[in-house]
């Protein structure tokens, strides 16, 4: 038996072992855990939280180190570990003429009318629908950016599954929720990708430097409408979010501080993918901010924010809640705040303190976190031993159905997290996700090839049937409305452009350019997994699967039910006898395990 297997069997045999492992570790105590508290179980807990969990071998590898060395390897990771991960492969959908992309279709056509050109496309000199190519191009980019963003999500999901530096990805996920920007507003996958790269590169470095970088990042500048913040007419949105959501939290500054900070950020803007300061629009006058006065610019404003003790407490508490527990005591918030401030906002120092602390390994912390949908999917793949995120089920669809779509946080405040991840319907849906991984749907339709809108599909059909554009684009499928009567159809209408046609044509142009997502299913071999471990009977099989996949063990009646289910389905309690035909039964029972409430806990 491997060390890992022995440990997990020990756990299964003494059902309460999990709760007793860390009895020595005290809640709310930041001092490091003792040597005797460091074992397979604590290593597993560390990997769950600092990463996305792992296989028994990966856990054993960590457990074999000292606690300090294990935490150090995760926090101060070596980027060269990930030489097997490839950079994002662009499809090549962007063209220079698309930038700056107008905020809306009407703005685009207005621009084309005034200047004779928009998005790099000229208006036709005469004839019907002179603006149609411009409108097509507008929709092309809308679709292409959405589809390419989905590829960026997939690329990121693959990294989360395959990275040897899982904390780098986990921290990027934290910052993505903290600095929430949404594709539907930014409308440019390149900006979103660049921001993600920022989180990858700076996520465990200085929070001050990261804050400055994000404040000057085109994705954020675009998301918070920085372009409308100009001298003489400052827009408070950007300054407000920086203080309210990113650094201090409400109640620690006045409305006047917001107005003054907004002045300091005037003129901050971007051109394509570059940050620029438009000096003509920048207000260089004196500002009074948080009790200080001076001709502050935006960076100086951020530095003053960083001097406030509440800033360190706010961000340290948020990181704590993400990695440890939903609730943080006021004393702990203060203590972690000082750790961060004394380390000059070095996030790695804070993380190291947290991951070594008794509090982190105390019973209140172990198995108390509800996995986010992304965490659920990634940890499922990791625990299965997969090398990437399968293409079926679709990662973005699956996590979206569970209420977390990467690059589409619900509001500027990010995901609420914690218990809000769960609804009765969503718990059932989580079980359905597990089923879709273990038994992939052979009728799967790839959403990056086939447009889900019945409207676009029906336009496509009617255009192919040879209808004119006006007839083909009559609305036809609201509810059960069906196709409009022939007599209601107008003859081909004289118009500047047809939006529905543009919407259809834009999709068609986008899928021509955007590379497809690989639609392989998960290669799973549970039979081999059990045989390799020398598992002999169904009780051992269930204990192995429970220990491998669950951080919180279900009660004995559930365990008995699972053993009985597996024995019944195999027609024997002997794994040896059932070896050649047991895969389907093992997958069924693993689906049952993954449908348990306890599987949702990390």
């Amino acid at each position: 038996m491997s060390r890992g297997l022995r440990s997990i069997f020990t756990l299964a045999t003494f059902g309460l072992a999990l709760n007793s492992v860390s009895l020595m570790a005290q809640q709310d105590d930041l001092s490091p855990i003792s040597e005797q508290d460091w074992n397979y179980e604590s290593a597993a807990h560390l990997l769950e939280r600092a990463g996305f969990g792992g296989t028994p071998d990966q856990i054993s590898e960590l457990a074999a180190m000292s606690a300090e060395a294990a935490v150090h390897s995760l926090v101060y990771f070596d980027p060269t570990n990930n030489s097997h991960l490839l950079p994002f492969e662009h499809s090549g959908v962007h063209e220079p003429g698309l930038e700056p992309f107008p905020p809306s279709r009407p703005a685009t056509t207005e621009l084309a009318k005034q200047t004779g050109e928009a998005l790099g496309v000229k208006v036709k000199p005469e004839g019907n629908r002179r603006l149609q190519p411009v409108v097509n191009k507008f929709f092309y980019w809308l679709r292409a950016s959405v589809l390419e963003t989905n590829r960026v999500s997939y690329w990121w999901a693959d990294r989360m599954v395959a990275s040897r530096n899982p904390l780098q990805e986990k921290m990027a996920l934290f910052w993505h929720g903290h600095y929430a920007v949404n594709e539907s507003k930014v409308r440019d996958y390149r900006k979103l990708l660049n921001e993600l790269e920022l989180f990858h590169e700076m996520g465990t470095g200085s929070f001050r430097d990261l804050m400055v970088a994000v404040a000057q990042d085109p994705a954020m500048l675009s998301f918070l409408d920085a372009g409308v913040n100009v001298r003489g007419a400052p827009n408070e949105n950007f300054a407000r979010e920086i203080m309210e959501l990113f650094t201090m939290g409400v109640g620690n500054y006045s409305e006047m501080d917001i107005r003054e900070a907004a002045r300091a950020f005037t003129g901050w803007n971007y051109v394509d993918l570059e940050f620029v300061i438009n000096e003509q629009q920048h207000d260089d006058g004196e500002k009074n901010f948080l009790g200080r006065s001076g001709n502050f610019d935006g960076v100086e404003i951020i530095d003053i924010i960083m001097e406030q003790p509440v800033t360190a407490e706010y961000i340290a508490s948020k990181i704590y809640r993400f990695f440890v527990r939903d609730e943080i005591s006021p004393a702990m918030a203060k203590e972690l705040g000082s750790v961060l401030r004394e380390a000059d906002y070095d996030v790695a120092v804070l993380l190291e303190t947290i991951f070594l602390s008794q509090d982190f390994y105390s019973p209140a912390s172990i198995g108390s976190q509800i996995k986010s949908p992304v965490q659920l999917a990634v940890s499922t793949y990791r625990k299965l031993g997969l090398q990437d995120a399968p293409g079926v089920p679709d990662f973005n669809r699956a996590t979206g159905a569970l209420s977390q779509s990467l690059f589409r946080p619900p509001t500027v405040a990010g995901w609420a997290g914690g218990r809000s991840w769960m609804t009765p319907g969503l718990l059932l849906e989580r079980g359905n996700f597990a089923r879709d991984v273990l038994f992939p749907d052979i009728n799967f339709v790839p959403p990056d090839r086939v447009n889900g809108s019945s409207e676009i599909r029906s336009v496509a059909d009617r255009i192919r049937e040879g209808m004119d554009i006006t007839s083909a684009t009559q609305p036809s499928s609201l509810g059960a409305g069906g196709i409009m009567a022939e007599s209601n159809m107008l003859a081909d209408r004289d118009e500047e452009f047809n939006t529905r046609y543009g919407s259809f044509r834009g999709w068609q142009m986008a899928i021509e350019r955007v590379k497809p997502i690989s639609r392989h299913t998960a290669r799973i071999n549970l039979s081999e997994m059990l045989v390799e471990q020398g598992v002999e009977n169904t009780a051992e099989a269930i204990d192995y699967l429970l220990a491998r996949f669950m951080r919180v063990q279900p009660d004995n009646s559930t365990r008995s039910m699972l053993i009985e289910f597996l024995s019944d389905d195999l027609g024997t309690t002997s794994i040896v006898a059932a070896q050649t035909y047991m895969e389907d039964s093992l997958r069924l029972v693993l689906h049952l395990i993954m449908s348990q409430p306890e599987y949702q806990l990390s």
Partner: protein
Amino acid sequence: MKNNIKDKPLARRQLLAGMAGLSALSMVPPAFAQAAQAAAAQAAANGKVLVILELSGGNDGLNTVVPYGDDAYYRQRPNIGIPKSDLRIIDDHFGFNPGMAGFERLYKDGKMAIVHGCGYENPSYSHFTSMAYWHTAAPNSGNEYGWVGKLADAIAPHAPANFLVNIAASQSLAVRSEKHVPVVFDDPNRFMREAFAAEKEALDIVAEIGAVENPSRRFLLDIARSANDASALVRDAWSKYNSPVDYGVNDLDLQKVVALLDADMPTGLYYVSYRNNAFDTHVFQNDLHRRLLTYTSDAVSAFIQDLERIGRADDVALMIFSEFGRRVPENVSLGTDHGAANAMFVVGNQIKGGHYGELPSLTELAQGENLAYTTDFRKVYQTMTQGWLEYGNSANLFGDDFGRFDMFS
């Protein structure tokens, strides 16, 4: 005549005991006693039920309740303005869109309040952003909980099961709650695990909470039980629902609300929507918009009739909103672009019907050729929470006291 609600839990216990089947393994959920209590406690403290209908995409209020008495309307909309002769005239200034026979009847029966000019300061023209403002009742700000979720926390602080229902493909931000577990489902027939036949019985088992100490695990076991309970209740209620009332083409999930009310679900707050940004009528809008309004009007008037059929019409009020109205002038594509202030509607037997608030000027437009709002939308929210549900601490919900209309008899 309503069923005697005390009979219900027993019937359900028998039903479930029969369903569970796995004698040795089945654990009859002890939550039935609680469920019975919750059912008896019912709805809000005053027994009233609030249903919210969201019209997603930005409904064009000016072509819904048309101010035909104002020439400016026809000047702004020379092509898509609806001629007086086509309208369903309700008084000397306004007429409903010709597709809205149901609304016309409700209004003339005194069961509909129209609140004009609803909006907020510094309006956002993004669907996403503006909808989030309406969902959280926090314009130009952020809040992790929705206002309906906060309302549930306020009026039912002990968070009884099944108090908050959201019929949707995914949970609306509006119902996100600190204490409640909103029952979120879409198709009642699919509010269930997708499982292979062999697994079904095993999946219906929820372990006892018993001495479990881990609070997150207790919470999940509660959710699991609620999922099992609610999914069975919802599917059961839906299978028993059989109404002669015609909801038209799209029932906007209001039939499901009636089914649950009829099954005495202890729900105080329901949230449904006309989905998928349907009202985003940028182009060639009149036929399309009329059709959307017909479906809405059919469904809403059928809902009220259906409530009367089951004897619950006096207990329920329906509030209808959209994330914004549309631009006053028509655009070149015979449609309208994203706008600002808009009409809201409140419907029910207990409503004092009529006009509330003021129609904004059609000549003195706000930034971007928009209607300047005359009523903060949170005043309408507060009318529902304070006037209808009689919950007094509005500052707790909305951060301020926005006042309310005297709308209920």
